[in-house]
């Protein structure tokens, strides 16, 4: 089996050094050599059933003769090469004894034939000349780009001898300032090695080859050409790739009667519609939060969702840190931004808001309208109803705040907010002078911005009318995720020829004759734009593991350029656009990961017309007047629109508000739950079972489990979609509920419907049953004003002296590692959790084990609600908790075999091979950060899954304890590098501040985690720890944690919250 062949450097695709590109920069290395299509001669293969058919009836000498004849055909040889011929299992059913013997003799013969097949000769020899930069044991980093929904993030892929293992953010990329990424980019590397990815090209479930596909389809393509593309339809997701767009547009020009449709299930439909209605054209809206003093988020989780989340989180957090006195140690309320968030379901953005209002989607729309009216947006007239008293109180206060910060305020309408809210937000932003400063408009990033819902409707209409002869579904899965009312699967089958390109054999491939395996982005050449329009180059790090192909390949074949590789196509696209010295510029772009100066120019827009605002106002009134419970349909926080459903890391990642894994549910407030009589929170802390409710939207209805979320708006429920996959991998199938069945094309985001308690219960797995801090000062908070007045605010919350000891402390004369976690910057986005999992080979345990409380994450995000009771949540917090690396570590003294010990650099080391598994350390750890391998969690039998593991980190066996190491492998690498550099006369042989970045720190978009040497007073971590906000979690226990937290400061509007005596707040009283 050579399909896992790792490219040797001279084969080209994986990278450049040997082909002569010289890269001096330490971090990235561009790839410049062409990727020749060196695919083996592919032949039609035989199926076992066919072999059986051909042997059937033959007896005696004839039997053996036909076997021999068969053995000579290339198809048979091909079949033998495969380890498990398809349908091998079919042999089991109903065999007579005679037939059995016949078959066994044939099997023996076949086995013999296999045994006699000469294996291809492969030479394993050491390098005669070591390729430059390839040092065994040292990873290389290649710049590439990861795109979700068409929008790119710049990433660096870490490659160990040709095997990508980890995704890091590319700090030089404009979409990733600070070098963070979102959690999807982090998890994307697991998808590459997913054993469930489709590995074979099939025609009606029979295996074919790429060549047969091309030749079989050729007559069809000729016919389509002669008809100018009549009956040809292409369906893709949002396309921002200039190369792909040029290819498709070129094809459409050649075949004018063909049509190109786009549909992204969790796409930015409302943003698009809002822009069109406000400005008459689909401009791209981008926020520049570095200059924003006041931010109003309308149903917008802009810090963790949407194409600019990483960038926004970074800009927001910088202002947060500045205001909390980062660097100076003195609070500056004027430097801190103020965030108002209105949302129905608690989100990450809500958790860091200075003022958070739980409001139903219609109330948020009403608020937008009232705010627009208050700020004098022409055409907006304040709604007479639909606002709670609290929201009413907010309107003048928020308006005044925005007015006071003219040109430095911004209203952000979320991707999930209805178009009317977007129109109003555009109006407000114009009125408060935000347009052009904190809100920037540009040409659209998608190459062909269309109303995707209309586009899909059109396609379905054409399909229903029988006007579609050939349909290409490329990289999307509409049979699963298209709006339910369109009944896409039924329509799909009306097309004559159906071709599906996808990473998985999914619901759509079920209905298509042809299924083509798609190449993962780490296996592909392409280009893609990020939110500001900057073009990033996507380069492969490994030859397609499953012989997948890119969309470029499929379109190229359609366009009659079947032999053009993606690499050639991308190069051609840029050949005349990179200036005179193309090669040099190309290499530079590959090295840097993006093509400079490709950002889309800023566009001046005029204020939205009064009619648009009036129309929006009318719509808002209709929304308010609607009947029934508001049902918000949202993409899932971890598996998104369902396309990540087979990613076990994301499945097991606890979701922001609920800490639920592996499932979706109907999320509702405690009050709504009480009304429906479904559940209570105390019970929830004890049992995994949740009551079922039936949700009815129009004539569609389904049963789902109910989940109570403190802080959810009353009178609305939130349902995430993406679960309930029928096909698409062992992990995806059978988890959660397919809520796309409730989503119709006219109510993609919010529907009105009915929720009722029905019988039955359903087990769900959560990693945190408890909602409050039980009155403990775990997340310390205060307001920035209080802190400015009293810098000792945070320390006064401590319980007395806690460093007291009879014994002198250990003298650290070298490094003394430590970490500071800034709760002002942390949004709880979970990117660090996945980054840690990827870096440290942390296993996934599955839903059943999570229910038993055995999740393995080394870093977790604790979530606490704050308020008088579960019904009135005033705020909620996130707190990343990893090993605190205590100076006086309780775990160390109780281990009977010394498997956990202190290093002379202050690390609390875990010695896996000494651990016998008494688990006493875990019991004695007050932070409960230790994780135990209760069972054999790491599957070492699946070859391909081994490839994703970091070779620098031990894979733990059953029965040993594990925990965060502060990425000790990275410290070791840095130490070696520093020593080597020192010996060569560069530097003093010491690790410099910033040389070691832990995986969680690297991934953090908002720079909330900082690691370094606390012995160096100039290090970032030492400076953070010196701030008066710094405190140790449970420091009163005398553990002297080495990980410390900077208390979270709020910057409330005095009009909404009169200054109180104390910054302390009471906590939810229930358990």
């Amino acid at each position, binding site marked *: 089996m050579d399909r896992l062949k790792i490219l040797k450097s001279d084969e080209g695709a994986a990278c450049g050094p040997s082909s002569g590109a010289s890269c001096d920069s330490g971090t990235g290395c561009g790839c410049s050599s062409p990727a020749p299509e060196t695919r083996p001669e592919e032949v039609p293969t035989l199926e076992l059933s066919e072999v059986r058919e051909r042997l059937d009836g033959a007896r005696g000498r004839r039997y053996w003769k036909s076997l021999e004849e068969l053995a000579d055909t290339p198809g048979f040889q091909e079949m033998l090469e495969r380890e498990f011929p398809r349908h091998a299992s079919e042999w089991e059913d109903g065999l007579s004894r005679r037939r059995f013997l016949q078959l066994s003799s044939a099997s023996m013969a076949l086995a013999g034939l296999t045994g006699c097949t000469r294996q291809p000769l492969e030479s394993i020899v050491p390098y005669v000349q070591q390729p430059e930069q390839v040092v065994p044991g040292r990873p290389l980093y290649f710049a590439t780009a990861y795109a979700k929904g068409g929008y790119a993030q710049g990433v660096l892929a870490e490659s160990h001898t040709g095997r990508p293992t980890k995704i890091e953010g590319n700090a030089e990329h404009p979409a990733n300032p600070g070098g963070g990424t979102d959690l999807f980019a982090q998890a994307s590397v697991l998808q590459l090695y997913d054993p469930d990815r489709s590995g074979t090209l099939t025609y009606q479930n029979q295996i074919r080859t790429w060549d047969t596909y091309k030749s079989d389809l050729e007559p069809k393509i000729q016919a389509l050409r002669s008809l100018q593309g009549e009956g040809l339809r292409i369906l893709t997701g949002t396309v921002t790739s200039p190369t792909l767009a040029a290819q498709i547009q070129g094809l459409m020009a050649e075949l004018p009667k063909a049509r190109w449709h786009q549909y992204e299930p969790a796409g930015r439909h409302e943003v698009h519609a809002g822009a069109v209605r406000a400005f008459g054209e689909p401009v791209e809206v981008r926020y520049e939060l570095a200059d924003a003093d006041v931010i109003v988020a309308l149903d917008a989780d802009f810090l963790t969702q949407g194409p600019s989340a990483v960038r926004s989180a970074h800009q927001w957090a910088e202002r947060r840190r500045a205001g909390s006195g980062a660097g100076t140690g003195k609070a500056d309320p004027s430097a801190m931004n103020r965030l108002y968030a209105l949302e129905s379901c608690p989100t990450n953005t809500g958790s860091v808001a200075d003022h958070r209002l739980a409001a139903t989607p219609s109330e948020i729309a009403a608020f937008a309208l009232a705010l627009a009216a208050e700020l004098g947006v022409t055409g907006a007239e304040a709604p007479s109803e639909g606002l709670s008293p609290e929201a009413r109180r907010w309107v003048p206060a928020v308006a005044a705040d925005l007015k006071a910060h003219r040109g430095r305020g911004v209203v952000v309408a979320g991707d999930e907010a209805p178009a009317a809210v977007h129109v109003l937000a555009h109006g407000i932003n114009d009125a408060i002078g935000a347009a052009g400063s904190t809100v920037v408009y540009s040409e659209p990033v998608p190459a062909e911005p269309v109303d995707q819902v209309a586009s899909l409707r059109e396609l379905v209409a054409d399909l229903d009318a029988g006007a579609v002869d050939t349909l290409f579904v490329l990289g999307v899965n509409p049979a699963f995720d298209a709006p339910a009312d369109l009944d896409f699967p039924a329509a799909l089958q009306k097309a004559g020829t159906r071709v599906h390109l996808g990473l998985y054999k999914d619901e759509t491939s079920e209905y298509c004759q042809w299924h083509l395996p798609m190449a993962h982005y780490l296996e592909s050449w392409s280009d893609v734009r990020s939110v500001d329009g900057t073009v990033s180059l996507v380069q492969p790090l490994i030859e397609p593991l499953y012989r997948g192909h890119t969309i470029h390949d499929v379109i190229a074949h359609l366009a009659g350029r079947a032999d053009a590789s993606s690499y050639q196509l991308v190069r051609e696209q840029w050949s005349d656009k990179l200036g005179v010295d193309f090669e040099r510029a190309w290499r530079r772009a590959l090295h840097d990961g993006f093509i400079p100066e490709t950002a889309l120019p800023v566009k001046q827009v005029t204020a939205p017309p009064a009619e648009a605002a009036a129309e929006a106002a009318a719509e808002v009134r209709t929304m308010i007047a609607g009947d029934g419970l508001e049902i918000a349909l949202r993409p899932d926080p971890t598996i998104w629109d369902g396309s990540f459903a087979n990613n076990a890391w994301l499945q097991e990642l606890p979701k922001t508000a609920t800490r639920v894994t592996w499932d979706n549910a109907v999320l509702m407030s405690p009050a709504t739950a009480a009304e429906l009589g479904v559940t209570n929170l105390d019970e929830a*802390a*004890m049992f995994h079972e949740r009551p079922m409710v039936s949700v009815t939207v129009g004539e569609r209805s389904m049963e789902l489990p109910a989940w109570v979320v403190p802080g959810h708006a009353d009178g609305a429920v939130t349902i995430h979609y993406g679960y309930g996959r029928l096909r698409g991998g062992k992990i995806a199938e059978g988890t959660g509920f397919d809520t796309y069945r409730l989503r119709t094309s006219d109510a993609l985001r919010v529907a009105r419907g009915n929720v009722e308690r029905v019988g039955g219960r359903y087990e769900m797995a959560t990693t*945190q*049953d*408890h909602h*409050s*801090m*039980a*009155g*403990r000062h*775990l997340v310390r908070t205060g307001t920035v004003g209080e802190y400015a007045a009293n810098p000792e605010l945070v320390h006064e919350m401590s319980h007395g002296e806690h460093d007291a000891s009879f014994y002198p402390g250990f003298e650290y004369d070298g490094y003394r590692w430590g970490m500071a976690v800034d709760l002002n910057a942390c949004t709880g986005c979970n990117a660090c959790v996945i980054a840690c999992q990827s870096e440290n080979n942390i296993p996934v345990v599955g839903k059943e*084990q999570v229910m*038993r*409380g*055995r999740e393995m994450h080394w870093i*977790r995000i*604790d*979530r*606490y609600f704050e308020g008088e009771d579960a019904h009135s949540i005033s705020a909620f917090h996130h*707190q990343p*908790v990893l090993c605190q690396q205590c100076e006086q570590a*309780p775990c160390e*003294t*109780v*281990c*009977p*075999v*010394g498997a956990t010990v202190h290093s002379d650099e202050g690390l609390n080391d875990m010695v896996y091979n*000494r*651990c*016998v*598994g*008494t*688990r*006493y350390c*875990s*019991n*004695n750890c*007050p*932070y*409960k950060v*230790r*994780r*135990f*391998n*209760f*069972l*054999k969690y790491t599957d070492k039998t699946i070859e391909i899954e081994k490839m994703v593991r970091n070779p620098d980190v031990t894979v733990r*066996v*059953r*029965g*040993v*304890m594990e925990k965060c190491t502060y990425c000790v492998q990275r410290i070791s690498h840095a130490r070696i590098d520093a020593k080597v550099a020192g010996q060569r006369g560069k530097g003093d042989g010491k690790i410099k501040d910033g040389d070691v970045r832990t995986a969680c720190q690297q991934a953090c978009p908002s720079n909330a985690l900082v690691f370094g040497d606390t012995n160096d007073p100039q290090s970032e971590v030492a400076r953070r720890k010196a701030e008066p906000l710094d405190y140790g*979690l*449970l420091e009163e*226990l005398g553990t002297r944690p080495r990980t410390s937290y900077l208390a979270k400061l709020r910057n409330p509007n005095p009009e909404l919250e009169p200054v109180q005596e104390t910054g302390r707040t009471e906590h939810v009283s229930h*358990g």
Partner: protein
Amino acid sequence: MSVMDKGAAGHHPPPVIVGEHDHGTVTDRISQAVFGKTPRWWFGAMGVAFSIVMLMLMSIGWLFAKGTGVWGLNVPVAWGFAIINFVWWIGIGHAGTLISAILLLFRQEWRTSINRFAEAMTLFAVACAGLFPLLHLGRPWLFYWLLPYPNSMGVWPQFRSPLVWDVFAVSTYATVSLMFWYVGLIPDLATMRDRAKARFARLIYGGLSLGWRGSARHWQNYESVYLLLAGLATPLVLSVHTVVSFDFAVSQVPGWHTTIFPPYFVAGAIYSGFAMVLTLVIPLRALYRLHDFITTRHLQAMAKVMLATGLIVGYGYMVELFVSWYSGNEYEWFMSLNRATGPYWPQWWALILCNVVMVQLLWFKKVRSTPVVLFIISIIVNIGMWLERFVIVVTSLHRDYLPSSWDIYRGTFWDWSLYIGTIGFFLALMFLFIRLLPMISIFEVRTLVPGRKGQAAPSAEGEVAP
């Protein structure tokens, strides 16, 4: 036996044995259990116990095949049934040594009738207890890393850990208990040798009796060794459970970290040990008709010890509660409230009922002298002491410092099957013991018999010897 001299007692309690007995009848009656026909109930009981042993072996097999994940453990409750059962069994094992050694030193001659039996119980309980620390390891095949043996890596156990102290405490206790029991058996083994008819039995008993001939020199050596061993075993009664309590007290877990643990654990251990002796002795006495040797005086004495230790245990609970409030430590006080009102409130209240309330019945002489009631109370106390360990281990861990990590622990099928399996193992060993060895010390009981043949010992409580 001078220490056993009946005349040593100043006042006149009821006699230790009743009925008309001389040396011969004592020997006959006791050795009859071994040499007589195997009673039918024995086969049934042994069959049941043996099948439970099979359940235990299956549980261990499954545990080894899959890992500790077959149990209900999680983070934060990383210790569960295995540790609960370990502490429970070790506690039960305390009564034997206490009866043998401490009561010997205190010249409590009523111990004579039950010491053999109690010592055997100790050994079997320690055998059951000893299984758990090994089985509860994540990688049990590496258990020997807890032992300080010289090795090429130069690695030693980490002596600050109470788990290492445990290894020493439990293994010393097991060794001394075994020696004490065996030494005490030697004269009786010789009796068995002399009375055995089958050649094989003569050989085995003969080998085990180490050539005992009952000479004065033998008796003298025997007495001094036995006394020395008693002296050695006495501090162990206190030290083992003290060290076991350190497993908890040394940690910083609220509900574990408390200085009252050593005395209160020892008292609890004796409490449960005596309860278990009663649980076993009352039915055996009836089955083998040993009312002459194990009289109500014995039962009463044991009930009194139970009452005393039960009161100490109750006091321990009170002090624990008081200190958690008085200390002003929010985590401690939360823990106390959580025990009484949290998810495990039924277990906590059941524990109070079993261990504190029910034992008050023993104030009544009528209760103390009614074997059936005593038997029921002893079972209740056994359950209560198991619940006490459950409450200590589970409720302390399941909600400690960070509410984000709080979770619920439930034993799985395999938790229960191993626990029940060890009870079967214990009983199976017990049944073998009573079938193969004299369950009451023959030679020591003989010293209690009035010297002259034919003179009946006064009857206590009107009991009539069969």
